[in-house]
């Protein structure tokens, strides 16, 4: 393709003289660049940066690294806020008739805990934060394809988050109909007040933000790869973000339009999700009748792909971490890519397995497709274990978090297979068994794997190291806290405890399980205080990271830490899926794999 200027040209970025020969490798000798400790920016090929400074720089930046960090910091704030809500919920449940919270406050808290964690932390942290920062670096691009759209995504996300939190300060309190907002509970009659409206508007804003980010990621990955970076040489993290971006484009428009319809139902007199005015003709409702079940169909058509929007990026993170700390290439690269695609494709056809007990869905279809997801997920587990197998393992904090992910996600996944079977689902639907299942899935992915990503890429983002010992304490406290919190919830769910209740009978033996679970949740909270301590220590006493502290494989470790404006002054030749490692180890003995292992046979012309 001819490289051409685009019509909205502001200033051209000239590709610097890129070095491909082996003689020069000045990049590796550059001193580590730490913001506030010398010149950190503006050295890309003599490309000095002019423009605003201070807060104006943050407000006006279109640099993917600044926007990515803004996303990550905002989403971490949301994570801590939602964590505090979880602790209040656990305290309330530690005794059967606790008076810590009123029932109304309890409903607000579990609604906002779920909404913050799912809409404002796990998703934006992955595709807004990490992907924004890492994907352009991994493919050798100077920025995202649409930098101003990228900035707009962040502002819509931030204002959406603020909109949702304003709910706590209005009369009637925040939204209290659960993060799924089932109709008709979310109607103006059942849930009046501004809190619900603010929640709807917040989801609409963050929905647009996610769609814009999805478009941006697809555009970047399709059009801005460096020469030689073919699709099947992209790091698995970038592959997973591409598939996630497609899932976002499938799922979020449905959610955002459902929110608009719900708002119309609440305020403009439509009856899309209410059964008002229905007349039965021969046992069936007339065509002009609204349907509460339509909400569930629309919501879960978003909601189930959303689970994988929250999982696939994190699968990508651990797939980056395992090979680096096993000193091996990733095992089964193409298997990983196709498994990711299969998981994403299947996940869009299983939405109604959340609606088994409505009695209005096609049980065999949704059950079959749900069970089928176990196959590509199993392939991924096989490949992760294959990557670790016979590797020279280094148990850094990032590696520990990734291994923790394997256990946590396996447990959540196995109970997920149980729930995909309608007879089991009918028995445990809406009990704490389901709560424990999805917390193990999401905690395994967004928290274990997510913080593996934080420990792994923090040196690249800030040019300084996090303390490994504090990181290991963080991991072990969290790992223990995780099992102590969620295993009792499976048991208490099987004993029949329903979810979304603020009090429960004291004579059913549920209290002891709840107390153990509450203790576990405080262990998790304590571990996250250690992370804050780690951040503070690394800022007050920086240990410079250098460009490639882990001797890592992918392209982002070739540039400086933190990367300069427009990321690269030169690039190594890209001849495999781990170009930085190839460049740093030219003499390494490698076992040929992929195309190199199966060269095409020369055709000998017959005389």
């Amino acid at each position, binding site marked *: 393709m001819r490289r051409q200027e685009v019509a909205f040209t502001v200033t051209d970025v000239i590709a610097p003289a890129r070095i491909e020969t082996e003689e020069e490798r000045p990049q590796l000798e550059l001193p580590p660049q730490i913001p506030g400790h010398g010149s950190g920016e503006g050295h890309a090929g003599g490309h000095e940066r002019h423009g605003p400074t201070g807060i104006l720089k943050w407000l006006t930046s279109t640099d993917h690294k600044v926007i990515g960090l803004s996303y990550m910091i905002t989403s971490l704030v949301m994570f801590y806020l939602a964590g505090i809500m979880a602790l209040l919920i656990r305290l309330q449940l530690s005794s059967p008739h606790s008076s810590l919270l009123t029932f109304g406050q309890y409903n607000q808290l579990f609604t906002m805990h779920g909404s913050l964690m799912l809409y404002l932390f796990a998703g934006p942290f992955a595709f807004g934060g990490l992907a924004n920062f890492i994907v352009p670096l991994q493919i050798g691009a100077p920025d995202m394809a649409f930098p101003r759209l990228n900035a707009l995504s962040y502002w819509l996300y931030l204002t959406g988050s603020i909109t949702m939190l304003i709910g706590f300060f209005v009369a009637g309190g925040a939204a209290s109909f659960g993060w799924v907002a089932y109709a008709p509970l979310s109607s103006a009659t059942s849930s009046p007040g501004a809190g619900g409206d603010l929640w709807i508007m917040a989801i609409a804003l963050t929905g647009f933000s996610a769609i814009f980010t999805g478009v941006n990621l697809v555009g970047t990955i399709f059009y801005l790869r460096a020469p030689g970076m073919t699709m099947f040489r992209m790091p698995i993290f970038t592959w997973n973000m591409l598939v996630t971006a497609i899932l976002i484009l499938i799922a979020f428009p449905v959610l955002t339009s459902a929110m608009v319809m719900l708002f119309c139902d609440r305020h403009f007199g439509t009856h899309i999700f209410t059964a008002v005015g229905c007349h039965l003709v021969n046992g069936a409702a007339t065509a002009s009748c609204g349907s509460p079940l339509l909400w569930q169909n629309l919501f879960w058509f978003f909601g189930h792909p959303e689970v994988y929007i929250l999982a696939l990026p994190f699968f990508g993170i651990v797939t980056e971490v395992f090979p680096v700390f096993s000193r091996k290439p990733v095992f089964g690269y193409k298997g990983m890519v196709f498994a990711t695609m299969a998981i994403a494709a299947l996940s869009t056809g299983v939405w109604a397995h959340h609606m088994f007990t409505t009695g209005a869905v096609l049980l065999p279809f949704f059950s079959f497709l749900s069970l089928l997801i176990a196959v590509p997920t199993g392939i991924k587990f096989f490949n992760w274990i294959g990557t670790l197998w016979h590797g020279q393992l280094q148990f850094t904090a990032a590696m520990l978090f990734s291994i923790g992910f394997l256990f946590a996600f396996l447990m959540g996944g196995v109970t997920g297979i149980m729930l995909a079977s309608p007879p089991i689902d009918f028995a445990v639907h809406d009990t704490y068994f389901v709560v424990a299942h999805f917390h193990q899935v999401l905690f395994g992915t967004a928290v274990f794997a997510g913080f593996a990503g934080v420990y792994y890429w923090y040196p690249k983002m800030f040019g300084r190291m996090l303390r490994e010992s504090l990181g290991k304490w963080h991991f072990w406290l969290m790992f223990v806290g995780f099992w102590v919190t969620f295993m009792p919830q499976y048991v208490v769910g099987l004993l029949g405890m329903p979810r979304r209740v603020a009090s429960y009978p004291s004579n059913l033996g549920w209290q002891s399980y709840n107390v153990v679970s509450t203790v576990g949740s405080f262990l998790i909270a304590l571990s996250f205080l250690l992370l804050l301590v780690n951040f503070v220590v690394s800022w007050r006493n920086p240990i410079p990271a250098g460009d490639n502290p882990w001797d890592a494989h992918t392209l982002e470790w070739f540039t400086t830490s933190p990367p300069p404006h427009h990321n690269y002054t030169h690039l190594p030749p890209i*001849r495999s899926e781990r170009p930085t490692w190839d460049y740093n180890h030219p003499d390494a003995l490698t076992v040929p794999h992929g195309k190199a292992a199966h060269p095409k046979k020369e055709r000998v012309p017959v005389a």
Partner: protein
Amino acid sequence: MKIEALFLLFLGVFFGVVGIVYWFWSYEDGGGMMLLGTSLLGFLPGSYYWFWHRRMGHRLEDRDDASIAEGAGVINSFPGSSIWPFVLGMGAFLTVLALVFGMWLIFLGVPLILTALTGVTVESRRGGHV
């Protein structure tokens, strides 16, 4: 461009098949429509990329023997720092708050959106900081 096109066309085919099976098994309108829409989401951009693949062949990033030096030159054009995404975001914020707290906020939100849209267009024409 070939892999990209095939990737999206595969989505179109997959959801087409799933959608047909689902529709003739359940006759459920909502899910059938959404699966049809998802199938089109694969086919429309997929065929666009396929068209461009046929016209321009392999790009440097599609060739596994391409060298970095071959890609020297202008990569693309990137806008510099710009206040307008922030202004547009604030406009959208005030506009959605208007739907909750009262229409008077629209008189703040919509002008901000219009200013930002104008600003971003004019900025593109005259250039700015990078």
